């Protein structure tokens, strides 16, 4: 009997040791180091300084790619609020930046409104769209949302292609770029900085939301819907809020995209766009903010790096993703263990 017990004990110990491999220990040590406020702020300040300095030294091409990364950081963090925080599956996220981009485009082109004034309208439109989609569907079990958002994505694109006000298939061309404090935003560096600011804001807001009463409510709903409801959390309202906040992120990013590109067309908002963003969120690690930033970086940079091999790059990209999902289904970003 006693032998059996000691045997069992060593088995348990072995199992515990297996978890404590050096890699995990190293990561935990980094987490602890990062808990120190001084270390955290100095690392972040250094990173920001490098990012601010980058445009002075590098090529236009590199700036384009980095601007695209910041854009993806914003939309991925927006989708992360829906998918990662609230645990909802949205398959038509591109529709929300279509809402933002078209709102800004139409107001500038047809009504001559200043770009900065189109932003609040864009937010308002995102809220209305979020309410219209989320309101009826979020009362149902969450799987239905995936289907409805998929439909919404296609409807938005098809509507944009067939309405006169959205310029039909040609889209909107010649959207005027704005000025900021008397300086015209024309160079790629200007947009690099604009999107960097948006990305930093998105990261900041994501963290603030995560560590709040609302963020905790989302976590609870993700874990157990019924228990959350029994704790007095209004599950439908909390989900709707997540859906709307995510939509607003998307719409704002879309508005800025409209002035950067100066032309938008229905083909800028394809289903594959939505999937790419979802992919970045899942790849990085749903609900983990640094992971999602990493995921956004990966989906933009990877195809660029392998541009040389032409159309095969997507094949390799797919294979890499497959391998990653088999060996790291929880996403790239490591979990904290302590």
């Amino acid at each position: 009997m006693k032998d059996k017990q000691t045997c069992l004990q060593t088995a348990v110990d072995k199992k515990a040791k297996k978890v404590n491999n050096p890699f995990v220990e190293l990561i935990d040590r980094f987490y602890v180091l990062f808990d120190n406020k001084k270390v955290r702020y100095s690392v972040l300040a250094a990173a920001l300084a490098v990012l601010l300095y980058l445009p002075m030294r590098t090529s236009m091409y590199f700036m384009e790619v980095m601007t695209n990364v910041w854009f993806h950081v914003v939309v991925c963090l927006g989708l992360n609020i829906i998918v990662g925080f609230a645990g909802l599956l949205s398959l038509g996220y591109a529709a929300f930046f279509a809402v933002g981009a078209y709102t800004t485009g139409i107001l500038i082109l047809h009504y001559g409104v200043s770009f900065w004034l189109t932003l609040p309208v864009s937010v308002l439109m995102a809220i209305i769209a979020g309410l219209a989609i989320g309101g009826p569907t979020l009362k149902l079990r969450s799987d239905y949302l995936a289907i409805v958002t998929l439909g919404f994505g296609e409807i938005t694109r098809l509507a944009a292609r067939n309405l006169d006000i959205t310029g039909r298939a040609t889209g909107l061309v010649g959207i005027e770029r704005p000025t900021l404090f008397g300086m015209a935003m024309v160079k790629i560096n200007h947009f690099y900085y604009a999107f960097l600011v948006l990305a930093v804001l998105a990261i900041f807001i994501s963290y603030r939301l995560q560590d709040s009463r609302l963020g905790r409510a989302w976590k609870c709903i993700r874990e157990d819907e019924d228990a959350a409801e029994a704790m007095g959390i209004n599950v439908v309202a909390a989900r709707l809020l997540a859906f709307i906040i995510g939509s607003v992120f998307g719409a704002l990013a879309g508005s800025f995209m409209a002035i950067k590109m100066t032309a938008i067309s229905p083909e800028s908002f394809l289903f594959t766009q939505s999937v790419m963003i979802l992919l970045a969120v899942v790849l990085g690690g749903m609900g983990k903010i640094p992971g999602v930033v990493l995921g956004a970086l990966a989906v933009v940079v990877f195809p660029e790096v392998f541009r040389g091999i032409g159309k095969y790059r997507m094949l390799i990209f797919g294979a890499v993703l497959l391998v990653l999902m088999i060996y790291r289904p929880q996403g790239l970003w490591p979990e904290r263990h302590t």
Partner: protein
Amino acid sequence: MILEVKDLTLRFGGLTAVNKVSFGIEEGSIESLIGPNGAGKTSLFNCLTGFYRAQEGDILFEGKSIMRLKPHKITTLGMARTFQNLRLFKNLTVMENVMSGMHCRTSAGVAGAILRPPSQKAEEKRIRDVAMECMDFVGILDKKDRLAKNLPYGDQRRVEWARALATQPKLLLLDEPAAGLNYDEKMQLIELIRRIRDERKITVFLIEHDMGLVMKVSEKIFVLDYGVKIAEGTAQEVQNNPRVIEAYLGKEEENAV
């Protein structure tokens, strides 16, 4: 009467799970609902807390009907529950689990979360204070930073009680709180139920299979069988009621050889 149930009927298709059940729970008392397996106890509980919608009858909480309310509204009104098979937020810490109970007593929204004004900071502190106090009350304060799933079963039960207490209820519904607990833990549970009532002035209503515990702790017992209330009274009265004995042990055959 803090809770009054009038002719409550719940049907699942052709099956009547709860059949014209009426009873009332006195404020400040400890009362229990017992009955054989499948008698409809948990279904009745789910009606009271809004998870099932009964077809007929009425449920009054502090004199107001809660029949058509959603579960989160009922919790906000002051009726908390625990689940038969633990429903903890497994991947959250004990602290986060208990803090969730305070959700319905606080109000910070999106703007509060992003801008963190002083009112939001004060509210966060209040949430933490209440959570700490509730964990201390049930005796798991030392495990507050552990993940709920990593705790032994008995402690997970305690987390669930602390979480329910954190909603600051007037009436606490416990669905089989003693299930899976050993003798010592059951004794501690009896003491805890009494302390919840005496120190926190919370009315307690429990479903239980463990007769010993029910008889010891409850001031009044309701017996349910096949969805019908067949008896109510003190432990003594219920124990001697022939219909209750029949429901639990079966009928004695008159012409037995």
